[in-house]
């Protein structure tokens, strides 16, 4: 799930923290999305009741996932669609390659799909000589920039208008003004031609409806509609947990999704397709493939500590309130899914703490994420659970283990604790400047390189406590009189 082979957490964080535009843009976008969500959820009346309904529906589906998957598969096949079950990302990629091979298509237009990011589909198709066009405006921008999404809802929030104009210019073949209407118009014209000529489209899926075999996709630009209406062949990619039982539950989830993701009452286009096209229909795909991806979701299902993370509807509300995400943006995480939910699911999807063990520390555990989540996933608890598991399984660094071992040894004995504090208060002047500790040895330097620490009190509390106690006794005696 890495974005490039090289990733170093400190380098990535340094880079993000030094990028003033990125930090301003991330704050601006997340502020707007968060405030939009709060306003529009207030309008609904009792938002907590809605969250409870959402949690209940998603729990119900997760706990009966085998039943609903069976039902979905049966209905899709009954309607004439093809279902492909992919255990691994490699399987999903191979299935897709086979479909392209069968038809010999050399151009594909995609609408937004995080699953295709998860399985790293684009580079493989491109290697097969297929032109892959992302049609969501933000996805198009980052595709040209050869960058991964920095947010699951607004993937190009880290790019400014001048950078975007610069990216478009070589394609336009002439200079472009960087105002929004010009840039949007350029993308509309570019994409029109692709929409009208492509024979195959790839889309994501927000919710699949088990009892009808319907897939639902929400977009604002209309690209999702184009890709699911005009080509002859359509491939829909979904994570295997993205199911609702029927239209009834879908209506609850659509309200939760649009309001939490972008602060809209509903997205501009909620597209519910039940492909393939019916006899006599003029448009719509005549061949439809639904690719359902496991990629260790089954493992998550079997892990009761983390099962609740499968409730996620990928609205991104947790990103917008996270104090860590808001400072560094999505790329610093190094994973396809960033933000609090990315911290939780990435080590599980990849079943790899060695590579993704830095993620559970991209959190202040403030719990804003859990509060924002429309399906009430206890995200901060799950992040703590990851940290706990990493300690138990021995993934923490040797230095950290040593520090905690000595900490446990010395600090559990009052005598040694006292003598350490005394020692510290006596010699801390070596590290101090203007009454604060300013330069510590490693690992304290990780803190003091950017911030200062208050000094240990001198004399230490334990030394003045006997006197304080005496004073207290005397005062109490005085009160009684």
């Amino acid at each position: 799930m890495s974005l490039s082979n090289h990733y170093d957490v400190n380098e990535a964080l340094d880079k993000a923290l030094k990028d003033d535009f990125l930090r301003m843009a991330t704050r601006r976008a997340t502020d707007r999305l968060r405030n939009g969500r709060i306003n529009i959820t207030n309008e609904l009346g009792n938002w907590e009741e809605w969250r409870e309904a959402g949690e209940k529906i998603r729990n119900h589906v997760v706990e009966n996932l085998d039943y609903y998957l069976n039902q979905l598969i049966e209905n899709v096949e009954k309607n004439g669609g093809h279902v492909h079950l992919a255990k691994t990302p490699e399987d999903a990629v191979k299935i897709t390659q086979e479909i392209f091979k069968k038809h010999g298509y050399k151009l594909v237009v995609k609408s937004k799909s995080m699953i295709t990011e998860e399985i790293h589909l684009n580079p493989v198709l491109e290697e097969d000589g297929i032109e892959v066009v992302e049609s969501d405006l933000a996805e198009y921008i980052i595709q040209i920039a050869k960058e991964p999404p920095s947010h699951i809802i607004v993937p190009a929030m880290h790019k400014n208008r001048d950078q975007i104009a610069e990216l478009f210019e070589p394609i336009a073949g002439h200079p472009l003004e960087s105002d929004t209407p010009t840039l949007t118009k350029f993308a509309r014209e570019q994409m029109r031609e692709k929409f009208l000529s492509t024979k195959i489209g790839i889309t994501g899926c927000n919710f699949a409806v088990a009892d009808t075999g319907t897939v639902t996709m929400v977009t604002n630009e209309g690209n999702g509609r184009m890709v699911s209406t005009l080509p002859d062949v359509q491939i829909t990619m979904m994570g295997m947990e993205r199911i609702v039982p029927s239209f009834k539950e879908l209506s609850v989830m659509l309200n939760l999704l649009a309001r939490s993701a972008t602060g809209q009452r509903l997205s501009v286009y909620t597209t519910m397709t039940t492909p393939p096209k019916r006899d006599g229909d003029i448009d719509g795909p005549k061949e439809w493939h639904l690719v359902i991806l496991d990629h260790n979701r089954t493992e998550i299902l079997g892990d009761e500590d983390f099962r609740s993370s499968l409730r996620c509807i990928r609205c991104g509300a947790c990103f917008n309130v996270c104090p860590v995400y808001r400072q560094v943006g999505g790329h610093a995480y190094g994973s396809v899914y960033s933000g609090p939910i990315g911290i939780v699911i990435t080590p599980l999807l990849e079943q790899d703490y060695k590579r993704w063990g830095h993620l559970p520390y991209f959190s202040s555990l403030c719990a804003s994420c859990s509060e924002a989540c429309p399906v009430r996933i206890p995200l901060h608890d799950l992040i703590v659970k990851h940290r706990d598991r990493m300690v138990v399984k021995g993934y923490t660094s040797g230095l950290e283990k040593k520090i905690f071992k000595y900490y446990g040894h010395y600090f559990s004995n009052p005598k040694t604790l006292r003598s350490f504090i005394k020692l510290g208060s006596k010699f801390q002047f070596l590290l101090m400047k203007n009454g604060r500790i300013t330069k510590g040895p490693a690992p304290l330097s990780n803190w003091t390189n950017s911030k200062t620490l208050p000094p240990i009190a001198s004399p230490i509390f334990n030394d003045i406590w006997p006197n304080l106690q005496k004073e207290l006794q005397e005062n109490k005696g005085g009160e009684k009189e």
Partner: protein
Amino acid sequence: MTQREEFISRIAQKLGRPTPTSVEPVEVSFPLFRLNSQEERVEEFLKMYEIMGGNGAKARTTEEAVSVLKNWFGEKPDWLNNQSIVTWDELPTMARACLEELKWTAYTYSELPSNPEERNPIMDKMELGITGADYAIVQSGSLILKSSPKRGRAVSLIPTRHLTFVAASTILDSLDQAMEKLASSDVPAAIEIISGPSRTSDIEMDLSIGVHGPVEVYTIVMLDQ
């Protein structure tokens, strides 16, 4: 064991039980948005539709509808020519009567070439697509369009403008009511729930109208005669 059985049984195993043959539906409750009368629904829908960026008006007769259209597009729109309007094959009587009254030349979708390679470039030049909606939703200012052989999906998508006619009696309070209705009849290949013109905020969070779908959207609410 087939691949599918294997896939499903792994899930059952992780859940620690055999796959159930039936499941009790989940019961949920949440505050419902409800208005008192159809008159109120019409007014509130038109208000919300405009908030969503659409142009809405009501009309009791073809005459009234024609005057609304003239008001929106002018006596003779500058974009109007012999190949600028495409409509659904199945259209409300009022919509058809308006076109006749205005003497605007319109193609039905099925009159266009059946080969997409010929049809798509023609559709791309269309300035106005005309449809009829099955339902409208007050709470979100949305229109619901079901597809069928006589209700082509591209008509509400590709032309620069989309005009739809919806009967006042089909305006519903909220999405849950609409879903109940949709679930009780045959499910078509596509159900589109449309709330306003195509939009994006992907460039510096700056709202921009008209990306891939229609730039302008119009609705006439047909009142009972």
